[in-house]
């Protein structure tokens, strides 16, 4: 394997400017991971205008730092306050808070930090080895494959996300529709532009992302959700003991693998892997009743897994150009506005971006490990700031930032429109993530599909007869039909179970 581009990537990362952006990213990530309200997706969306001006490598380095930094931050509130900062930190609450109650909050945080670091590093190594292989394999892909993969990606995100699947797919389709606004590349015809000069150019990615992810969350948080106020939590002992580390090392190892594998799957990601890793540890344990009462593996496993997953979720984006989750869709868009088309050619055409980002993750994880343990107290202080004060400041950053992209007030109005749309969607149970992802992938899917049709001479069965795209289409059908299959299976097993006598389970 030719390692010179990898080494080159390190030299890119170690440039002082890039290091600074990496540091900024992980610090911002940790801060918003701690804060309830804004998630990494919303923050990345709001900071997109900044990335516009600084070049692709520092931009993605910083945004990536925010993403995996937020995983660290979410753990802090889970352990100290029994309040998961991120969805992927929910499982950590059980044993983490129990440890905190026993006065061992520092142990929990420490093992979480170490596990996260190891999980992240293992994942990065896997990424380093796997990514060029996948990218090489994908070079055989043609338009039909891309169309199929794009559709599969959109479908998976909608299916595996949080909300109702049907609504998610509808949202995704609306995203595809919005992507058609503007001039059709093939025929030059204007679609849905209503004679507006602005719309003739199509709708820009940045205002949609800022509105649907950033502003919508701010508006959503305005409604008072009567949350409990907590007393300040004490951190106590700071380092886990050697015995703790020994006990946790199996969990860390297994968590890394689980996180790496599940993170690659579109829609899977950090939350699923933390759940899976926790469940596995509990099943393997000789004394499963320790879990929920302060078992060190109960913190080590999910925390390792969620960081590994956050890192490996970059693989589909960097190698195939398919975002695995909504945040990756934002990265996709961020690269696009820099004039870089993500895809298998990324590793050869822009090795500085490819390797620069991957290598920045090593550095970022080291920075997080250094900062997370001693600086927990500092990061928790941010929880004392009332959200009512942060909200208008964030809103102002968002709106003024939107203006700076093109120096147009029109962009601010776009952000507001999509912000209101996103808010309404959230209220009514429609996830905005699939919409943005579909919007980002829409042009690629359409162009690939149309090119494919031209290749096939108008014969759509060509999609299925080609081996790779045929497989992908089979997967698409499978994923689409899965909920129905699952429902049928469930109905049958519950009918079976109702006939058996109920067993008493002894603890």
């Amino acid at each position, binding site marked *: 394997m030719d390692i010179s581009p990898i080494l080159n990537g390190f030299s890119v990362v170690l440039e002082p400017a890039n290091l600074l952006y990496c540091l900024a990213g992980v610090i911002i990530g940790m801060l918003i991971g701690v804060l309830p309200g804004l998630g990494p997706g919303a923050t990345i969306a709001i900071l997109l205008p900044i990335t516009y001006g600084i070049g692709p490598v520092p931009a993605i380095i910083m945004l990536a730092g925010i993403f995996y930094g937020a995983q660290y931050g979410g753990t802090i509130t889970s352990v100290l*306050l029994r309040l998961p900062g991120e969805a992927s930190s929910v499982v950590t609450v059980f044993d983490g808070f129990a440890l905190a109650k026993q006065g061992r909050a520092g142990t929990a945080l420490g093992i979480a930090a170490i596990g996260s670091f190891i999980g992240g590093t293992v994942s990065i190594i896997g990424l380093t080895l796997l990514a060029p292989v996948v990218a090489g394999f994908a070079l055989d892909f043609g338009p039909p494959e891309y169309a199929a993969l794009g559709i599969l990606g959109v479908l998976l995100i909608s299916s595996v996300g949080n909300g109702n699947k049907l609504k998610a797919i509808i949202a995704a389709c609306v995203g595809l529709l919005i992507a058609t606004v503007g001039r059709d590349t093939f025929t030059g015809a204007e679609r849905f532009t209503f004679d507006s000069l602005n719309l003739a150019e199509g709708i820009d990615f940045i205002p949609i992302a800022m509105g649907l992810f950033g502003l919508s969350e701010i508006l959503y948080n305005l409604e008072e959700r009567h949350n409990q*106020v*907590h007393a*300040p*939590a004490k951190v106590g002992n700071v380092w886990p003991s050697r015995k703790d580390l020994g006990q946790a090392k199996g969990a860390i190892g297994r968590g890394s693998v689980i996180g790496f594998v599940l993170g690659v799957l579109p829609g899977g990601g950090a939350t699923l892997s933390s759940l899976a890793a926790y469940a596995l540890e509990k099943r393997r344990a000789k004394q499963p009743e320790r879990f929920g009462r302060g078992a060190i593996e109960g913190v080590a496993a999910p925390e390792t897994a969620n960081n590994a997953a956050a890192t490996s979720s970059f693989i589909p984006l960097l190698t195939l150009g398919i975002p695995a989750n909504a945040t990756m869709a934002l990265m996709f868009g961020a690269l696009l506005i820099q004039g870089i088309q993500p895809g298998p050619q990324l590793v050869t055409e822009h090795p500085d971006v490819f390797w620069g980002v991957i290598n920045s993750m090593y550095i970022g994880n080291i920075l997080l490990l250094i900062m997370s343990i001693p600086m927990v107290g500092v990061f928790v202080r941010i929880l*004392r700031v009332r959200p*009512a004060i942060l909200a208008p400041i964030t809103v102002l950053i968002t709106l003024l930032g939107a203006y700076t992209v093109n120096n147009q007030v029109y962009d601010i109005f776009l952000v507001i429109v999509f912000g209101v749309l996103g808010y309404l969607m959230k209220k009514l149970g429609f996830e905005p993530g699939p919409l943005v992802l579909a919007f980002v992938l829409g042009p690629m899917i359409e162009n690939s599909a149309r090119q494919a049709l031209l290749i096939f001479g108008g014969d759509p069965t060509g999609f299925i007869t080609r081996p790779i795209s045929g497989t992908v289409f089979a997967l698409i059908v499978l994923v689409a039909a899965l909920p129905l299959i699952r429902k049928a299976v469930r109905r049958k097993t519950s009918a079976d179970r109702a006939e058996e006598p109920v067993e008493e389970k002894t603890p």
Partner: protein
Amino acid sequence: MTILVGYLPTPEGEAAVDAGLREGALRRERVIIVNSPRRGAVVDEHKIDDAASAALLERARAAGVDAEVRQPLHDDDLFQTFEDLVEETGAGLIVIGLRHRSLVGKFILGSEAQRILMEARVPVLSVKAAR
């Protein structure tokens, strides 16, 4: 009748609890320790946890006073919280700890203690932190 004691985990708060418990013992009245955090933030350094509450109740028991700890949230109007409590419990006395604030400090940050002193309907006993 009851006595309301405003409590923060500060020297002034401690002094208030001391004075409040003394009054409670003297008058043979119930004491309600009011630890009211500000609504909004996830963490408020003024809120005390369950262990600290239990310790306060223990102090009251040792002093022979019947006490309880309440932690209502307030928005921007701690004074209103006290007013509502006076109304609800028929309290006859409020005890608060006072901290010296400079003119500028009082102007920029406001003084809830001052407002309670000026506008409460029942007598207010103000104490300073133990030297």
